[in-house]
């Protein structure tokens, strides 16, 4: 037996019990935008754990940067769509945004996309701590629903183009997109209501 063929030790992301636990962490991220939740106890990367948790045949997914392993598509059971039309879009955060996801309508703002961006590192800095090296580092100062006062989030490996594009996408509430940022250890959420101030670090 080749040990490399074994999955990571940890919770099976395809099991409903794991998905319930992952969902509750994501729920905490939505309730407290910018809060980084650890997801290091699953047998696959946090991004895959989230996809397994959120998707099924009732929804659609676009993967313009080919981040999803071919073998995972059948397990996700999700319909494949384009980045412009899918309900969920997975993208490489280090690359510039080059599509406009669906933003919903005034009457049905829920028909908007959720973007899952893979970045290098996510940290809620304590004091002067910053994101680990690896790509450009952005210090975000967050406010809005779910955040008493402000919260800092340091992200490395996020192309700043995403933030300017996102500012356009969420400019006319209730239209918008909701972002989920993932690194190799965990994730956080930036719903459309979160106000983001950018501080270069």
């Amino acid at each position, binding site marked *: 037996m080749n040990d490399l063929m074994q999955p990571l030790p940890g919770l099976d992301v395809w099991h*409903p019990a794991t998905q319930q636990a992952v969902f509750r962490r994501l729920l905490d991220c*939505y309730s407290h935008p910018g809060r980084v939740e650890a997801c290091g106890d699953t047998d696959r990367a946090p991004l895959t754990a989230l996809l397994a948790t959120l998707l099924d045949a009732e929804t659609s997914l676009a993967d313009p940067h080919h981040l999803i392993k071919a073998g995972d598509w059948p397990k996700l059971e999700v319909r494949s769509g384009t980045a412009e039309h899918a309900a969920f879009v997975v993208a490489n955060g280090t690359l510039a945004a080059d599509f406009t996801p669906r933003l919903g309508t005034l009457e049905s703002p*829920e028909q908007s996309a959720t973007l899952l961006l893979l970045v290098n590192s996510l940290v809620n800095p304590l004091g002067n701590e910053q994101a680990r090296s690896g790509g450009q580092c952005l210090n975000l100062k967050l406010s809005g629903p779910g955040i008493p006062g402000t919260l800092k989030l340091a992200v490395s490996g996020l192309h700043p183009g995403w933030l300017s594009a996102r500012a356009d996408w969420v400019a006319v*509430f209730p239209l918008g997109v909701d972002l989920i940022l993932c690194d190799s250890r965990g994730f956080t959420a930036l719903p459309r209501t979160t106000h983001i101030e950018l501080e270069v670090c």
Partner: protein
Amino acid sequence: MTSHAYNFGFLDEYAKKEVRRAILKAIAIPGYQVPYASREMPMGRGFGTGGLQLTLALIGPDEIVKVIDQGSDDSVNAVNLRQFIEMTCPGVSTTTCTAECTLLQTRHRIPELPLTAEQIIVLQVPYPDPLVVVESSENKRKTMHGEADYSRLLVKLYEDIVKYDEITISHRYPTRINGHYVIDPSPIPRWDVAKLNNSAALLLFGAGREKKIYAVPPHTRAEPLVFSDVPFRVEDFRDEAGQRRVCARCGCANSFLDEFVGDAGNKTYQCSDSDWCDEQLQRAEQVQGVAA
């Protein structure tokens, strides 16, 4: 997903995912009524199926659940829902203690004890749309909500003031969330509306019959619709002499009271929140014990 033999939380995993996706949208668009495909439940709609579907989509094996109806853990409705959860979610524990629970499903009340960031409150909703009273077409209501156009609802409230000198809505007081959507906060009294504002806990609302889910995220503005010259007032529990009535059981003078009429036609008052009442009573007995 289906290859796993798994039987927890009654709903199939597809139904849970549907509800979970709707919950996330509801938090991202505070106060917006997210439509979802509500499944048939083994109890009549109107018995809290919307709330129950939220609970079953959220619940995990380590959960500590409390279920109340009109503030009481012991009413038939609350007991039935609690038993259903115990039966379908092996490992989950239940409690009547507000401070202990991680997930609270409720109808008609929000507990007196302030909830914490570690708790989620699920409210059962019979009528989710506050605009129904002024507009019968759902399409038109959706446009009005999207534009945050509540002028007709405000006119209706104002007519009330002209007629009765104050806003007479006792329950389901229209409340604006994060400066945009106005929600029906479910049949909670005005007393509880203030608890929606800047809450530490996430509040989720489920309407099973109307197939809608909406949310008030933590630390979010929730403002009852008011006019500058007619302030929002909570229920008044003063007697004819202007004295604040107290709970006949525990003596609490700052809780929401239920009125009971005795055989002789005499009225007595008691905390509507039974766990709160128990806690106050226990505290009072401890103080007495120390004094003795």
